[in-house]
């Protein structure tokens, strides 16, 4: 196997918020190869959103650094190298659904007909055809979240940062969009960082699952997902799928208790 080129490289990132003196992230090291699909999972408040923001250059790390495609995170942001879906939909009330999806395309200077065509495609993808002229406040929470997913995907970024994008959706839509996301990922050969609270979703989607532990936020372990691709409905019935789900769950549970450093080393050894 050839070594894949590193797309995102997080090295020694620590983030302390002065207000409340919270150490949201402590010494995070993580490399993402091109075309990887990484899930971040961990209890609430363990720094998943913060890590995503650090990667996106929306939050300055206290120490450590992030490079994206060999550039600084700042340069990558300026070059519009990534698309982002926030935990909340973050839509603009004064724009219609279509106009919200168009926003990044406007910023990239696409002409109107091209924007229109793309918006129609994206609306179809998230099953919101016919809602293009609605305003965000006329939609349900789940529909709003789908608009923000459509917006992030609209310009086909090579790197996608997604913070619990499917959290507000019903199970059926969620599973369908999981499959859609996978097919987009395969088609675009993009790299994805995906935050979720669902173990099975993480295992189903990812090439690697990063388990985080809280206070301070650290990487507790990384589980390689060796399920055969392309994933499909059957994947969820694969015995290996259940083994991996259990493995992630164990890792999460273990981190609920306090471990001594030696034990931590032992667990890390098991993973390797």
């Amino acid at each position, binding site marked *: 196997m050839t070594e894949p080129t590193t797309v995102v490289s997080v090295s020694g990132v620590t983030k302390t918020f002065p207000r409340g003196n919270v150490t949201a992230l402590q010494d995070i090291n993580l490399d993402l190869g091109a075309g990887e699909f990484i899930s971040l999972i961990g209890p609430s408040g363990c720094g998943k959103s913060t890590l995503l*923001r650090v990667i*996106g250059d*929306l939050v300055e790390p206290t120490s450590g650094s992030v490079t994206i495609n060999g550039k600084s995170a700042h340069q990558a*942001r*300026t*070059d*519009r190298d*990534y698309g*982002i879906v*926030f935990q*909340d939909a*973050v839509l*603009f*009330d*004064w*724009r*219609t659904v279509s106009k919200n999806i168009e*926003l*990044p395309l406007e*910023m990239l200077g696409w002409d109107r007909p091209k924007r229109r065509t793309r918006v129609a495609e994206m609306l179809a993808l998230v099953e919101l055809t016919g809602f293009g002229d609605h*305003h965000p*406040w*006329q939609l349900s929470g789940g529909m709003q979240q789908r608009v923000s997913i459509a917006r992030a995907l609209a310009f086909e970024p090579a790197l996608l940062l997604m913070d619990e994008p499917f959290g507000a959706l019903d199970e059926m839509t969620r599973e369908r969009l999981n499959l859609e996301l996978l097919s987009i990922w395969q088609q675009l050969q993009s790299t994805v960082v995906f935050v979720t609270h669902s173990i099975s979703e993480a295992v189903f989607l990812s090439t690697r699952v990063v388990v985080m532990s809280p206070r301070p936020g650290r990487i507790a372990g990384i589980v390689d997902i060796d399920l055969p691709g392309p994933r499909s409905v059957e994947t969820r019935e694969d015995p290996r799928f259940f083994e991996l789900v259990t493995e992630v769950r164990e890792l999460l549970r273990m981190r609920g208790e306090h471990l001594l450093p030696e034990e931590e080393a032992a667990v890390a050894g098991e993973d390797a």
Partner: protein
Amino acid sequence: MSASALTLRSTKALREWAPALVVAIAVIGGWQGAIAAFDIQQFLLPKPSNIAAALWDDRGTLWPAGWYTFKEALGGFALGSCLGVLFALIVARFERVGAALMPIAIAGNAVPIIAFAPIFNAWFDPLEPTSKMAIAGVLCFFPVLVNTLRGLQSVRPQQIELMRAYAAGEIAIYRRVRIPTALPYIFTSLKIASVLAMIGAVVGEYFGGSFDALGVLIRSDAQILDFVTAWAGIVVASVLGITLYLAVAIAERIFVRWAPGGRDV
């Protein structure tokens, strides 16, 4: 828009306005009746019918005078509001300037500026419209400044974060996020300003002004105890003030069409 939709809209408008209309008619009717019943003196409160008659008889002087004053109010409104918005944009952009100026602006907003009317008449030629425009303008300036600034600052941080993720610069953030967010606040303050502008112009004229002006007319009629004509002048001032207010409200409907305020689109 189809004809039926138009009818639907006008029926709806009628239903919305009907209660207000009924109340207005009842008040005027009650007023007319009360004067007859309690034998109230003409100089205390004239009959609506007499005011209406004066309004008709003196239409040749009242309305041109009203128009003269309205133009002063409009000039002051435009000047004061534009400067208010402009100042707010500058203050919001440069935080240090904002920190220094904001307490002063808030204090200025609380000062009864109308009390300065005689002074403005001394600063500018009281017979020229500029002196009244200045009062109206200063009256409009502070509420527009304070509200616009509040609007510009009430942007959700996540929206700014999203724009930054798309590498948006300050100008793009202003154009696409801050100004649209501030727009409802701006219109609220413009509605307040439209009322203040007319007050400023008329009261400014009470302290002296051209004989073409409505405020001067109302005052001199009151001085010679011609209260019916004074009342007719007040009606003209009210009609013009309400017109300005409605114009702003209509502009608001056009520019803030998207607002979620319960309006069915």
